[in-house]
């Protein structure tokens, strides 16, 4: 997928953002449809029928429908993907659990839309939904009596349906907003190429196969055949296959199971990042770079060191170490015997990292010695280990302060390879991106410009991408050899 689209526009890496795009497309086309819709039992079908085909109204209608279908598909993939990546627990529990109600809201927002067309499908769907709710036994009068006979159907009911179809999507939007509250810089806008591609393909589908209505609803008969939209209406078919109670059991059971997943036993949570006020000057770089909005600023206990001090909310912290990679105090060139920094990960402190770098460098042998920094979530760099190649794995590539690259080059390495996850596939969302920007001098802390460009290399390699890793190492060694060959006299001097 990355090869076809590039990570920035790989749809699988941006399913949530695509879902947002679909929501906005549904809203825009919905506003258009609403302007021409007639809110009455007798007028609804004809007013929707008038917006069919390949004219402007027809395109708005088809886009509205197909974008809604795409929303279900994308959200289903989004949930599967987040689950497959085991993002359903720990510090992510809030994002996971707040996603669950979105499924219900999405389903009801969509199903309610089918009712407004007031054709055979609408009547079938409305009847099935009302019968389903009646099975709860909470309502005095069976709701399904509302569609029993023409005299029970009135325009008041229809106004209620319209109100629901506006209100439930609004609730969905609110839910979507809550869902991304614990994610900083949420990815809600797909890259331009992906946006245009997706809109284009939906538009093409709308022109090739415009959405049409079934015959006007008639309560005195059941349509012989219904062209159901299975993305939304499949539960109705299931209900008639089984029973309303069985469908409730399935839906509630699945909801509870999803919502309870974070409660299952999981590998223990890693200890959160810790701030050392003595080394924090209040620069806010860690706040900027934290992918989970886990850091805030408070008044500094020692005003001589800075106005503010960083504070970590342990409940939100993913223990990724990206903040330590951002902190100006993390520079390995500091003289102190112990490298204490402003914000650090107990799991792998900057001091430990420097000790390990020193040890790895001393052990290196050969003419072109390379140190490889990798990350635990990406491709396994230890596979590259050899006499002239030392490897160190960090929690996240974003944990590496760029100063360590220069430090390694000055203390015996000829080259440094930094291996990060695929650009938009970082386990900690932003680590691979920040690490690229820092090394390329586009984000603080920078890799200093006098560090020779041929001596380091950044490679993006996802979990099992050993080949990408090897290619990166090969390219680095080639550059080192080419450089050495260009300067023979230096080599002898």
């Amino acid at each position, binding site marked *: 997928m990355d090869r076809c689209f590039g990570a920035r526009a790989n749809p699988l890496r941006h399913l949530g953002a695509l879902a947002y795009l679909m929501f906005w497309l549904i809203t825009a086309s919905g506003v258009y449809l609403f302007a021409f819709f007639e809110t009455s039992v007798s007028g609804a079908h004809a007013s929707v029928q008038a917006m069919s085909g390949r004219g402007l109204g027809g395109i708005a209608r088809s886009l509205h*429908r197909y974008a809604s*279908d795409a929303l279900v598909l994308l959200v289903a993939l989004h949930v599967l993907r987040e689950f497959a990546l085991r993002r359903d627990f720990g510090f992510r529990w809030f994002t996971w659990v707040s996603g669950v109600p979105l499924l219900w809201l999405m389903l009801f927002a969509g199903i309610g839309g089918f009712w407004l067309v007031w054709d055979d499908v609408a009547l079938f769907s409305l009847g099935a939904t009302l019968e389903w709710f009646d099975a709860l036994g909470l309502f*005095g009068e*069976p709701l399904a009596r509302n569609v029993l006979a023409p005299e029970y159907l009135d325009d008041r009911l229809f106004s209620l349906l319209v109100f629901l179809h506006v209100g439930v999507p609004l609730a969905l939007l609110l839910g979507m907003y809550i869902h991304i509250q614990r994610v900083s810089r949420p990815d809600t806008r797909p890259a331009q190429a992906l946006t245009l591609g997706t809109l284009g393909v939906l538009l*093409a589908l709308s022109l090739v196969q415009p959405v049409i209505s079934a015959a006007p609803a008639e309560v005195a008969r*059941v349509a012989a055949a219904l*062209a159901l939209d299975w993305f939304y209406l499949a539960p109705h078919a299931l209900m008639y296959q089984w029973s309303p109670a069985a469908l409730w059991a399935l839906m509630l059971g699945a909801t509870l199971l999803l919502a309870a997943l974070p409660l299952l036993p999981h590998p223990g949570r890693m200890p959160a990042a810790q701030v050392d006020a003595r080394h924090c000057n209040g620069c806010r770089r860690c706040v900027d770079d934290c992918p989970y909005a886990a850091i805030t600023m408070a008044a500094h206990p020692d005003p001589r060191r800075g106005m503010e001090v960083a504070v970590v909310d342990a409940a939100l912290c993913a223990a990724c170490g990206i903040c330590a990679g951002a902190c100006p105090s993390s520079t390995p060139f500091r003289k102190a015997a112990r490298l204490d920094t402003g914000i650090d990960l107990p799991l792998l402190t900057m001091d430990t990292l420097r000790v390990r770098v020193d040890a790895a460098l001393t052990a290196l042998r050969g003419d072109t010695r390379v140190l490889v920094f990798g990350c635990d979530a990406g491709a396994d760099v230890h596979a590259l280990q050899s006499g002239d190649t030392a490897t160190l794995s960090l929690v996240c590539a974003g944990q590496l302060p760029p100063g360590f690259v220069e430090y390694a080059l000055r203390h015996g390495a000829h080259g440094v390879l930094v291996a990060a996850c695929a650009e938009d596939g970082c386990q900690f969302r932003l680590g691979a991106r920040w690490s690229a920007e820092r090394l390329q001098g586009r984000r603080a802390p920078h890799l200093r410009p006098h560090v020779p460009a041929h001596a380091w290399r950044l490679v993006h390699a996802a979990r099992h991408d050993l080949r990408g890793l090897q290619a990166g190492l090969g390219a680095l060694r080639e550059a080192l050899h080419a450089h050495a060959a260009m300067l023979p006299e230096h080599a002898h001097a």
Partner: protein
Amino acid sequence: MPDAFSLTGQALLYAAFAACIGWFSSHPVYHPLEADEALVKLSFSHAAQRKAPCRERSAEELQKLAPNMRAPLDCPRERWPVTVELTLDGKLLTRAVVNPGGVARDGPATLYARYRVPAGAHRIGVRMNDDGNVEGFTHQREETLQLAPQRVLVVDFNPGKGGILLQ
């Protein structure tokens, strides 16, 4: 510049996306009933008779009540359950005893049920009792109806429109 491989890959994926949406948005076709079936919906919302008639309070009883509660008539609000039987060609489809709604059991008894039946001519019988003081049934109706395939026959009850309705 994207190469041929990536362009083909993108085109294929977009096509698969469109095909999936285009297909499942209206296929496979669903048949709510078999081709030779009709549907009978038995549903009513009916307030049955009260269990006890109003009764005049004696002077002694009135004396015991708070002054603002001294209504001369004592009207118990509880209603009888509604018993209903639906037969198709003489065979019992369902027999239900529906309790009145409301905490005080004074609301309407309501029912909604659906039955898939073979299309064709049927003798449909409906019998109801809404008054526990009456033996047997208080309302009944029996009719032979031609149920076309896909037809929905609604069996309702409305005393204002003559009792049991078949429509």
